[in-house]
């Protein structure tokens, strides 16, 4: 399909340009202007991304909306971007979450507003760049650049322990990605001087280097996902980040890791992926079960949701390493749905935190008496987080469990434990926060959600229900790409 208008470039650079414009408003006396520019930019960013869906050719397995220019010749690096059925939904998710984050920070952020809003817009553009890069070096540049705004967001607007969390977040992620860089350079050498990801897909590599490359990629992506045992940065980062930061982290940045597995690990090192599949499945199951148990014990709401994110992302990596179209699609659905649900959960906690300035479960109780509308929304998202049928949280998990069953009963058994654990930790927290007697006098003072908060939660609620009942619009766009990926992964490159 030929598509001459540089749509993808627009999707990448429009938010970045708006972000720079927001920075330019400078001082806090222009805060209102900064907010409106940010809102306009993020909504425009979403609008220009819509043609990506409407114009997408769902039968094609090739990259679409491709743009390819020479970036620097010295190392044969190209500005080569395009999307397929895997990256397109993730770009849309990102473009959708950005306006929500801007709205979520509207009144809450009072200091250095322009820097806050600008950082989110710039990050949104950078993340779109990560999802659409077809050149490994371009990918790497966007991938690393996305660390900078998040580092600042956590460090400047975060909670009391923000400096520790920000530096931990940065160094952890950097560790993984630096080894990925070495892997890229090695691939550049073996491919005879190409940084094209599609060339790498066709490159024949012996098993030992494949395993080493796989491990380098694994470190980069596993930290990002995050998989057990390299997940420890996530609870810290989530707890300390401002609400908007937590939303973007959970909804978007974790997806970068999952996307990396599909774009790099599986197609570039298929034999190593098969060779190490059992290890990956076991690690994923540990994330699902063990982290689920840890979530049960949390006294801090944000930490609980952070751990539940790790558990849910365990399903994503589990789905990838079943080498089955059903599993991969389930994992993709799980990624998108987790974007909505975890984003919504963090927004809900943010709503409470803005009023009470506490995230401790024990400080709450009886909130439903004062905030009935909020309690209803929170109920829906909590159910979705627990994987209730009819919400989007169910679809992905169910598909992955079904697919796991084909491989091994016991794998499926442990995976299915999530339905119990997820319900246990989410609903128990919900019960302690929302129901019961009002014991804290501060809860007595609570006001129900404002119009701004209502809009935020309503948009996510609609999406959660819609994709829970009718996920077809999501799965149909990824069918062709995923089928081709599975064929590719199941054929040896040795």
């Amino acid at each position, binding site marked *: 399909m030929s598509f001459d208008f540089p749509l993808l470039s627009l999707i990448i650079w429009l938010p970045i340009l708006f972000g720079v414009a927001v920075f330019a408003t*400078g001082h806090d006396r222009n805060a209102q202007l900064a907010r409106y520019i940010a809102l306009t930019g993020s909504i425009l960013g979403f609008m220009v991304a819509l043609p990506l869906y409407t114009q997408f050719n769902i039968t094609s397995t090739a990259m679409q909306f491709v743009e390819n220019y020479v*970036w*620097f*010749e*010295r*190392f044969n690096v190209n500005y080569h971007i395009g999307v397929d059925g895997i990256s397109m939904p993730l770009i849309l998710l990102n473009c959708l979450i950005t306006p929500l984050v801007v709205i979520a920070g509207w009144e809450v952020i009072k200091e250095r507003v322009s*820097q806050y809003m600008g950082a989110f817009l710039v990050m949104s553009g950078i993340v779109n760049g990560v999802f659409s890069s077809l050149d490994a*070096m371009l990918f*790497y*540049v966007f991938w*690393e*650049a996305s*660390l*900078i705004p998040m*580092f*600042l967001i956590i*460090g*400047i607007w975060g909670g009391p322990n*923000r*400096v520790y969390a*920000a*530096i931990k977040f*940065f*160094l952890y992620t*950097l*560790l993984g990605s*630096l*080894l990925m*860089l*070495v892997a890229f*350079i*090695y691939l*550049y*050498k073996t491919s005879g001087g190409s940084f094209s990801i599609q060339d790498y897909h066709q490159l024949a590599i012996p098993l030992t280097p494949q395993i080493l490359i796989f491990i380098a990629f694994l470190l980069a992506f596993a930290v990002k996902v995050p998989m057990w045992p390299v997940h420890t940065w996530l609870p810290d980062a989530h707890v300390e980040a401002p609400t908007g930061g937590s939303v973007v982290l959970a909804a978007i940045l974790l997806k970068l890791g999952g996307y990396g597995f599909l774009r790099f690990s599986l197609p570039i090192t298929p034999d190593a992926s098969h060779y190490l599949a059992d290890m990956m499945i076991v690690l994923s199951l540990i994330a699902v079960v063990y982290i689920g148990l840890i979530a049960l014990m949390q006294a801090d709401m944000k930490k609980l949701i952070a751990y539940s994110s790790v558990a849910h992302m365990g399903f994503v990596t589990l789905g990838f390493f079943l080498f089955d179209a059903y599993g991969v699609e389930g994992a993709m659905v799980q990624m998108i749905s987790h974007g909505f649900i975890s984003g919504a959960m963090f927004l809900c906690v943010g709503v409470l935190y803005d009023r009470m300035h506490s995230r401790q479960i024990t400080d709450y109780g009886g909130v439903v008496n004062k905030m009935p509308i909020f309690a209803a929304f929170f109920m829906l998202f909590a159910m979705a987080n627990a994987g209730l049928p009819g919400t989007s949280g169910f679809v992905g998990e169910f598909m992955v469990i079904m697919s796991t069953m084909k491989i091994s009963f016991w794998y499926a058994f442990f995976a299915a434990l999530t339905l119990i654990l997820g319900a246990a930790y989410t609903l128990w927290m919900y019960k302690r926060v929302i129901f019961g007697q009002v014991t804290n006098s501060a809860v007595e003072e609570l006001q129900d959600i404002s119009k701004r908060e209502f809009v935020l939660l309503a948009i996510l609620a609609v999406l959660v229900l819609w994709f829970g009942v009718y996920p077809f619009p999501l799965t149909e766009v990824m069918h062709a790409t995923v089928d081709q990926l599975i064929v590719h992964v199941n054929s040896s490159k040795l």
Partner: protein
Amino acid sequence: MSFMPPDFAPASSEIFMLIMVCVVMLADLTVGQNRRYVTYLLTQATLFGCAVLTFSSFSNEVVLTFSGMFVDDTLADTLKLMTYGTVSAVLIYSHTYIADRGMLRGEFFSLTLFATLGMMVMISASHFLTLYLGLEILSLSLYALVALRRDSVISTEAAMKFFVLGALASGFLLYGMSMIYGATGSLQVTEVAKAIQNGVNAKEVLVVGLVFIVAGISFKLSAAPFHMWAPDVYQGAPTAVTLFIGSAPKFAAFGFVMRLLIEGLEQMASDWQGMLVILAVMSMAIGNIAAIAQSNIKRMLAYSTISHMGFLLLGFISADANGYSSALFYVIAYVLMTLGTFAMIMLLCRNGFEAENISDFKGLSKRNAWYAFITLLLMFSLAGIPPMIGFYAKLAVLQAVVNAGFVWLAVVAVLFSLIGAFYYLRIIKFMYFDEPETNEPILLNNDVKILLNANGLAILVLGIFPQALMGISLYAIQNSM
């Protein structure tokens, strides 16, 4: 037998520089303290004149003169032009700083120009003695510059250390050179290369000589384990002089390595490769780990320099044009970053207040968001995070290393740069996450402002469009080999 005068044309910029240094010294005697800007302008004009001379006679081929002791080639001209630019930027940045501290005297300018002359000679040397001569002109001027604040104990101590260790290193170099002379019978770079190619009897003498030469080079580059002078000198010297020591001489050092190891002793690559691997790994380890513990920012940057020099040496390990051009690109990127960083430190200095500690960066983003942003770019660039130029420098070098088959070395290098990222992040933490301790406004002259903005943005813009600079590095190397 008639006397044939040598061809002076290839050395025209050096000759011009020498004349002008004398002119600057004499002119300075005639102006009073309140009209010292005349000296300053004359110095800038000298650099500009040299640039014009070098540029107008930019050579695309290798020209030897003075009986093969002096060479003019693309690499030399490129490095010289960059040296002029860097020295000129150093003078602009440090003008206010030295004026505030009573160092705005003729000596500062004439010593700087003498040092520049030394660098030019080093860059253009094609004979071991010329190399040594250039090195000594540079080093002696630098010793004096460090001691310029003569009433400061710490400066004097730094100068003494610098002098003693520098003299030791020069001794090493001379000893190594004499052994090479003994083995090959020549001191002319290309003659030495030819002699080695034809085979020498005393291979052992040659290798021992090489060891001494590599040790001497490591001293000058401040590569571990010959790095001990760097932290003390960086800390003790007035910041303006630290800026000078940390920036322009790196080009000369690069030229020095090229002439000695590559043009002279490339046949012995298999011998020096192993030495460079050890030096590089040690520098990256010591530099990055020791930097974490520093609270004095100049000391921290000294250790950071050591680690960067380790990275730079990696570029030479592959022993091919690809690697050398990567190393050259690394030097250019490094000098750009150093200029910006030290300029930023001087920016925080005020009359009577010396910004020395990392904590002086506290709350900079609230005092001045724009300069905090530029420092942010510089720090991420030093840490090697894209899309800043420092990343492409690392990429180029790592690529050369992997290409030469040292994948493990690339892994070691990235792990140490991960450690390095921590102390750069710490400065960002101070700037962005902490409250300012003072609300003193940051005042700048217009020329500094323009240059600093250009310098900071170049870090980003050259990072997004690195092709031109990479092309220049590759051209300069390929055209001179």
